């Protein structure tokens, strides 16, 4: 009888350690995925001034579009230090929207597009937008997995011990971002 109890306890402990480690590993993946988003957002913040400088001269009469981009960028930089996920998602969503409008405007200036610099910047911007989108996709996938795991029946018993709390998803709040104009490159 005693031996049976001992074996049972041992089994439970082994299983508990496994479940605990799974949760910790997922938690680290979430943190890692978030860092990846952060890196890409910073990249975009750094890219905006170059873009503005390249198109400023030719687009004097489109001031509003340019100013919207600059304003959205400055707000995004401000929030990026110490904001929570939903707040950052909101301001970055505005920046995405403003950039897409700017790209759509650039499309209507054939002279501007013809200079090689813009073509390169367009590729950089497309790539940066994609990187943000893909890092968001990865983040949301990992978060979903983490949140599901910590609520599922066997793992839920060790969730408290592992300090697992549901992580926030990066959701699209901005209607403008959902209805982005399709930029043909």
């Amino acid at each position, binding site marked *: 009888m005693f031996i049976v109890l001992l074996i049972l306890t041992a089994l439970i402990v082994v299983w508990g350690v496994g479940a605990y480690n799974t949760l910790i590993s997922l938690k680290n993946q979430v943190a890692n995925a978030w860092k990846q988003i952060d890196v890409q957002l910073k990249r975009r913040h750094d890219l905006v001034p170059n873009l503005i400088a390249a198109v400023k001269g030719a687009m004097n009469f489109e001031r509003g579009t340019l100013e919207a981009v600059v304003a959205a960028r400055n707000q995004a930089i401000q929030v990026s230090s110490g904001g929570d996920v939903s707040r950052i998602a909101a301001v970055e969503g505005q920046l995405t929207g403003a950039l897409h409008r700017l790209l759509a405007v650039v499309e209507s200036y054939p002279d501007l597009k013809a200079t090689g610099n813009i073509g390169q910047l367009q590729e*950089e911007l497309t*790539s940066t937008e*994609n990187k943000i*989108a*893909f890092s968001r*996709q990865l983040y949301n*996938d990992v978060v979903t997995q983490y949140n599901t795991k910590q609520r599922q029946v066997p793992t839920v018993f060790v969730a408290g011990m592992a300090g697992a709390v549901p992580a926030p998803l990066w959701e699209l709040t901005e209607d403008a971002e959902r209805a982005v104009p399709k930029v043909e490159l």
Partner: protein
Amino acid sequence: MSEEADLFTQQQRNRVRSRLLIAGFIAFFAWLGFGGDWLLWQFTMDAAPGGYHHVVPWLGMALTTAAGIATIVAWRKGPERVLWSTNAFEVIDPANEDERRLVNVVEEMAIAGGVPRPRIWIVPDEDPNAFATGRDPAAAHVAVTAGLLTQLDRDELQAVIAHELGHVKNLDVRLMTLLAALVGAVALVGDFMGRFMRGGGRLHFSSSRGGGRRGGGGKKGGNPLLIVVLVLWILSWLLAPLVTRLLALGVSRKREYLADAMSAQFTRNPGALASALHKIEHSAAATTSIKRGSAHLCIADPLGRRLTNREGYFAELFGTHPPMAIRVAKLKAMAYQREVRGEMGDGR
């Protein structure tokens, strides 16, 4: 999540199979060597006291050591060897728009797949194709042909790169690179054997088997074990290259479907891979830069064997790649399901 479970199982399976492949490879050469020693020992046992007696198993020791060294080289230098054999050059500083786009796309897909950015290579060949190699995600390489860059649009390129990173992420690259390197080593055995049979080897064989000793064996009533071992041993030498070819076929087909599915998971755009595969399949020529030994690494059969066009048992058995029609059909089904379901619920 079942996707995650799949990935983990696949990684585990690839680790185990890589180990088995190495063990099998060394064991096979040990058998060739020590088997030969045993046979020689049997044949020279009742030679005259002054004659040659094969006592020290130098053949076995030499071949086993050689196999061990070959494995270490394959493990360490396998990826470099594969890339070198295709004349690929590395993209470090993108020199033109195509290269810049390639680097960007690879970086994007590395993010989507959650793997480190692999090193990027271009194979100077006009036929569109791509492959990945490396030991693990931290030291991986992705190579595309120049033709792929010019013929595919951004979305299609993205899908192909995602497919390759799928191979990287589930450790297919480890097993497939090892196999490519070891197949090369066994091909050497085949060459050697061919020369041996045609040339001076015959002399050696006839002197050791012929004459009195062979008669002596007959007088003993023909040691059946000796004959069985001799036949098996010669068969092993002859069939080794064929067996490794079949092995290369066996490992590569199922994982193409899995990598296609991973590509769809990374890009959320299975239709792009379907159209990329269609373009790759319908380009005219074979990818001549990619040699036979690394064919199973590629996204589509580089040898242009029309076998992959047909469905059915024969194609399933002998192609290095699954029939293209089935792959495209599976991807189109995925794309259709996405349309029906709308978004995948992740906001993209």
